């Protein structure tokens, strides 16, 4: 026997208690440990909890012990424990009660036995009880998962799908939603079920079942999620590759972000625009860059997103094949300073022939009047975001009457706004800031001819 049997003796007679104690010690030595004695029913019931004996020996002849009450309390708990009623007056076999089954057995057998015999029907009963819980939970999990998934799908989570690249993304997201619905249902149903079914009854001060874990289960719920996430990574890589699939016939468009406007340049036809015009069903290779801080190109209906970075060697690619004609907006998705929120530009998807016509018209429509050209550059380079033409101060000085005006600089110097100053202010914006304006302008890529046009336009703003 690997550990001594813990025994509690219950009797109001000291002779019974001490006599039995010394007898057991003499006979069984280290195999038994008398963990305590109790003199009445209350003490005995309390000792059941505090001493957790394996065996309780009760004086059968002691009428001061309320045997019925004691036995009623004794069978309440699930802890393996037995009670034996011993009589000094009467002869015959002693009665042993097992807490779990209340089936009789003989004390000598038990003391010599290594294993506490587990009656088979009791074990099956507790297993059947567990199975009942598991089946109930499994049914509930399936119901809740299906309902959550159906609800989310009915809600319509994604906006209009308007690009070829959106298709693999939406498909993958749909699979994610299914897994989310299932796992959410699994955990929450188990929790809520436990809270309802295994809630402690009022007045009960006992503890729950004592089990510390299950290595097999732990391994299972490590391996299965591992397999799932590896599979999802594999799917994710496939979907990513699909969004990046290159069409060698793709049309190139340069996308230039500047605080807080977008500009789109079409190398075919040397056209530039503040509205992104795209032909339907033709892949467009966007070449993204920034003149100042980080911006991010995102049209929610196209799904794909890519940051536009400053730096000559940092031009980034993004491929979009628009599939639905209509008007959308490119919305800057990377915080880019004060007016980030308003950095949105229209996107127009047209039929291929309409697009060709637009591009052709734009290429031929560059005005001959320098003032008109200047106005055009001012629009395209987004000057109006900071410079008003009506005298209102913005992020930068208003252009109304700016040409020829004398301005005071932050250094206290005075400067006349002439061709040279305007050119310097565009090329190196931080060099001479006008007093009252602290944010330097971003460096813009205007050509000398464009600057000349712009100056002509400024002269007209009286």
């Amino acid at each position, binding site marked *: 026997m690997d550990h001594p049997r813990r025994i509690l003796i219950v009797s109001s007679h000291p002779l019974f208690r001490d006599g039995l104690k010394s007898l057991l010690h003499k006979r069984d030595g280290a195999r038994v440990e008398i963990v305590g004695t109790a003199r009445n029913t209350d003490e005995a019931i309390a000792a059941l909890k505090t001493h957790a004996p394996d065996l309780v020996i009760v004086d059968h002849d002691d009428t001061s012990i309320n045997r019925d009450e004691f036995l009623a309390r004794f069978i309440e708990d699930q802890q393996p424990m037995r009670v034996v009623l011993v009589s000094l007056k009467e002869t015959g076999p002693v009665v042993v009660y097992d807490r779990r089954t209340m089936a009789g057995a003989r004390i000598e057998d038990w003391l010599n036995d290594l294993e506490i015999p587990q009656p088979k029907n009791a074990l099956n009963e507790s297993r059947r009880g567990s199975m009942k819980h598991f089946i109930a939970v499994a049914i509930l999990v399936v119901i809740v998962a299906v309902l959550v998934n159906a609800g989310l799908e009915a809600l319509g*989570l994604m906006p209009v799908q308007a690009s070829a690249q959106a298709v693999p993304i939406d498909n993958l997201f749909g699979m994610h939603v299914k897994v989310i619905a299932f796992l959410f249902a699994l955990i929450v149903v188990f929790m809520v079920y436990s809270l309802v079914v295994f809630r402690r009854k009022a007045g009960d001060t006992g503890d729950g079942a004592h089990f510390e874990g299950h290595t097999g289960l732990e391994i299972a719920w490590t391996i299965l999620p591992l397999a799932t*996430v590896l599979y999802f990574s594999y799917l994710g890589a496939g*979907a*990513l590759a699909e969004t990046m699939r290159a069409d060698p016939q793709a049309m190139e468009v340069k996308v230039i972000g500047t605080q807080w406007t977008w500009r789109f340049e079409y190398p075919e036809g040397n056209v530039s625009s503040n509205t992104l015009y795209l032909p339907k069903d033709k892949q467009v290779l966007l070449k993204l860059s920034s003149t100042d801080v980080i911006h991010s190109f*995102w049209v929610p209906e196209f799904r794909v997103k890519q*940051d536009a970075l400053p730096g000559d060697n940092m031009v980034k690619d993004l491929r979009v094949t628009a599939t639905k004609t209509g008007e959308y907006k490119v919305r800057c998705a990377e915080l880019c*300073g004060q007016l980030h929120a308003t950095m949105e530009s229209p996107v127009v998807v047209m039929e291929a022939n309409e697009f060709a016509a637009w591009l052709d018209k734009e290429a031929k429509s560059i005005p001959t009047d320098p003032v008109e050209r200047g106005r055009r550059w001012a629009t395209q380079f987004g000057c109006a975001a900071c410079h008003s033409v009506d005298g209102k101060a913005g992020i930068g000085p208003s252009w109304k009457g700016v040409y020829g005006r004398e301005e005071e600089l932050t250094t206290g110097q005075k400067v006349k706004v002439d061709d040279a100053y305007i050119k310097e202010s565009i090329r190196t914006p931080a060099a001479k800031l006008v007093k009252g304006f602290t944010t330097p302008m971003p460096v813009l890529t205007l050509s000398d001819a464009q600057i000349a046009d712009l100056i002509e336009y400024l002269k007209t703003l009286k």
Partner: protein
Amino acid sequence: MRILSLGFTRGVIAQIIGSALGTALIVAIRAILGMPNNDLRDIEPAAVFGGFVGGIAFMLGVGSMDDWIKWMRGIATPEYHGPDPNKPRWQRYFDVDYDHKVIGVQYGVTSVLLFLLAGTFALIFRTELAAAGMQFLSPDLYNTLMGLHGIVMIAAILTGVGAMSNYLVPLMIGANDMAFPRLNAFAFWVNVPGALLVVSSLFLGGFDTGWTGYPPLSARAPLGMQMFFIGVYLVGLSSILGSLNIIVTVLKMRAPGMTMFRMPIFVWAAFATSLIGLTATQMIGLSFLMVLIQRVFGMGFFDPTKGGNVVLFQHLFWFYSHPAVYVFILPGLGIVSELLPVFARKPLFGYKWIAMSSLAIALVGFFVWAHHMFTAGMEEYLRVPFMYATLLVAVPTGVKFFSWVGTLWQGKIITPTPMLFTLGAIVVFLFGGLTGPPNGTVATDLHLHDTYWIVGHFHNTMFGGFVYPFFAAIYYWFPKITGKRMNETLGKLHFWLMTPSFWAVTWVQMFIGLRGMRRRIADYDPTQGFEPAQLLITIAAFLIALSVLIFLINLVRTMRSSERVTDNVWNSRSPEWQLPSPAPDHNYADRPFVVVGEPYDYGLPGSTYVAMQTGTASARAE
């Protein structure tokens, strides 16, 4: 001058004087050299120097370095520090004190105050967002408040983590204090000048970058940006020193018989957290310091016109800032694992698996940072490997959830307020966790990145991983700290008001995020039809604020009441509950204990976790 006898006031005054002197010194040098000092941009180097000097001045003024200075001068200091009998007891909390329990409470109160501040920032800009168009904030102020909400919340969480680990770890492992009590006090107090500097940015032009401070935007932002950098630097220093202290304490100061696998599970969480804090925090300090230096000395680290690379910053930044989210959540998950067995009256299911899953999350967390950069323009071939690494985090996290469910199964569950918040933490964090994988697979992230979906997702992880467990911890250990128990009715009201409001906020956020709502924008396009949703989010946010107000009322009422509860009010097996409440100075000095059983053997009659000797005069050697 009664007020000057408080270390806190001395520190703040020293910081103000130090900042002024430091700034004046550089301004004077610039003037002598003939350099301009006309506006904030000119005096930026002076203000940065002043900021650092002010931080050091605070630490000297508060007295956090007194003992070290004495040692340098060859003066001995007493080994055992008790409360000063000549001062009222409350004053300990405003002075440098070496008792880990006092420091834990100091962290906790700081955390709650920072929470209220950051929450107030959120309510202000949330109100602005209730309708399209700009109503009462300027875009600049919106951006600053939004960035401050983020960074002050992070400071609040870090100090909250400090509160839990400082108060609990020594008590749970049977130590009488932390391994380095002076370092512990230093690590707490350095948060205060840090927080003051961060908040001062509001008055120095603000910053328009959000808490992430990406250059080139942060290289061009107003002076407030620099104060933000210095403040974060100091708070980060606190993390590093605090983590070091926890690691040494856990490894060296455990009671006899307390093997690593017999520690209360929260200690494992605090230990894993500290491994991250000690090794990763340097990187955010470095990345912000590089921008600071770029601005002051004109270096070109992240300046493309000087050959710098803007993506490099993001790698450095996220190398800390991703593991940092595990610093935020691991202690909270530890609280969940700690409280569930107490209220399910059942052993923690799979103790070793839960302990190891914390370490696994900490480890894997170091290899996933670039998932914040899938659209950032880093090398394209990095995206797929980082996707695989990112999704791996789901595995140890899943082990925790399944084990928690296993703990509840067939328990005898009771649901007082701390248990409600524990269960709330599980469900909210579950939702935060489940909405993570769509951001982890690159293709879907191309759509989700930088939208309100992400905002909803991480608020779920932060609430489930920190806010709910922190409230659970406050309700649970409040009787330990004060001997008084917080009101149950108000506690339940707090829970049942906060939870639906929180779901309303984040579910709606995630939904409109999918539909095209960008994050971090001061205003939004009314044609997208998000106005009703934004109004709903704002109303729900105010309801969360109301629930927190109820919590504060409960806190103050309980503090004022004189009703005491029994020492072990939750009938826990953990050693700190075997002590009188409030816990005595020097914890177990008079009651050393030996670990004789497993920590969570609820339901095993007759078993105990620790055997405590009471009344022994001989204190165990420190």
